[in-house]
């Protein structure tokens, strides 16, 4: 299968993702510039962390109007997997592909540390390699990671089982301890923690592999159905 990694001016985790997919998952991967307008030929799209456009205006607010975004919206609508990590999550909320928004951490501090997460839904295409309620350890590194949505939206997220990962010790003030959510269809995930920084034990954790493995399993199972 083939992954696309979108690269915006100010992205800074795209190569970490690239190595995670190429060297750990042994899958095809290609960087796609924000200036392109097609995602044809890809099975999944990853949006990396960083500070696209310097976080000017709001995190993700300017990247959201890049030439690649209409292609991303089409790709998401087709039901194929889209994963936005950190700034990628912020871009997805700004683009209207995920509900809510990411605010300043409640402490007003940039937080860079490993956090235990609770797997809140192990049935999604991004989390099937985990067990429900499993604790996984992933690093966070953000200043604007405080997930906010209104009560109505939160009710819908809970009712549709869209909350995939929760913080065990909420580090940033997120509503309902939310660390990662999907869209209603379940094929777009946004999360603040960085799975690509936790793909080898030498990095402190390899729990991030489960997320990429879940995506690979999902895409390959669909290929079998399509060709079978």
């Amino acid at each position: 299968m083939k992954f696309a990694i979108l690269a915006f001016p100010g992205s800074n985790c795209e190569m970490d993702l690239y190595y995670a997919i190429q060297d750990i998952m042994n899958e095809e991967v290609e960087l796609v510039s924000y200036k392109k307008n097609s995602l044809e030929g890809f099975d999944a799209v990853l949006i990396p962390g960083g500070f696209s456009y310097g976080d000017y205006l709001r995190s993700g607010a300017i990247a959201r109007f890049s030439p690649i975004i209409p292609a991303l919206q089409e790709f998401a609508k087709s039901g194929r997997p889209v994963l936005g990590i950190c700034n990628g999550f912020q871009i997805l909320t700004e683009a209207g592909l995920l509900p809510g928004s990411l605010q300043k951490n409640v402490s007003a501090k940039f937080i860079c540390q490993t956090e235990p997460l609770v797997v809140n839904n192990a049935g999604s295409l991004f989390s099937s390699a985990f067990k429900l309620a499993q604790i996984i350890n992933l690093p966070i590194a953000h200043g604007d990671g405080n997930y906010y949505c209104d009560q109505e939206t939160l009710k819908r997220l809970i009712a549709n089982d869209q909350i995939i990962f929760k913080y065990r010790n909420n580090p940033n003030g997120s509503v309902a301890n939310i660390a990662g959510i999907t869209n209603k269809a379940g094929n777009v995930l946004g999360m603040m923690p960085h799975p690509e920084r936790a793909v080898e034990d030498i990095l402190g954790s390899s729990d991030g592999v489960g997320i990429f493995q879940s995506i690979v399993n999902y895409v390959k199972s669909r290929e079998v159905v399509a060709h079978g």
Partner: protein
Amino acid sequence: MALVKVYVNYKKSILNPEAQAIQKALGRLGYDNVNDLKLGKYFEITVADDISRDDLNKEINDICDKMLANYNMENYHYDITETEAAQ
């Protein structure tokens, strides 16, 4: 020419830790009369004068809704003032 001054601020329900940090620092400096402090964004947009007021209002609302403000957590308002055209 017209000058549009756009003010964007957080909705009341949204916590603003940056504003709180500033307010606390003012308290430490002894400004005991400060009861509340808000921190928002301010934009100045200059527009050509060959656009009707209705169209201008429509365009500024569009700009704010689309980009300058995030309706999840922010409100905005704006004032339009006529300025003299460049000679």
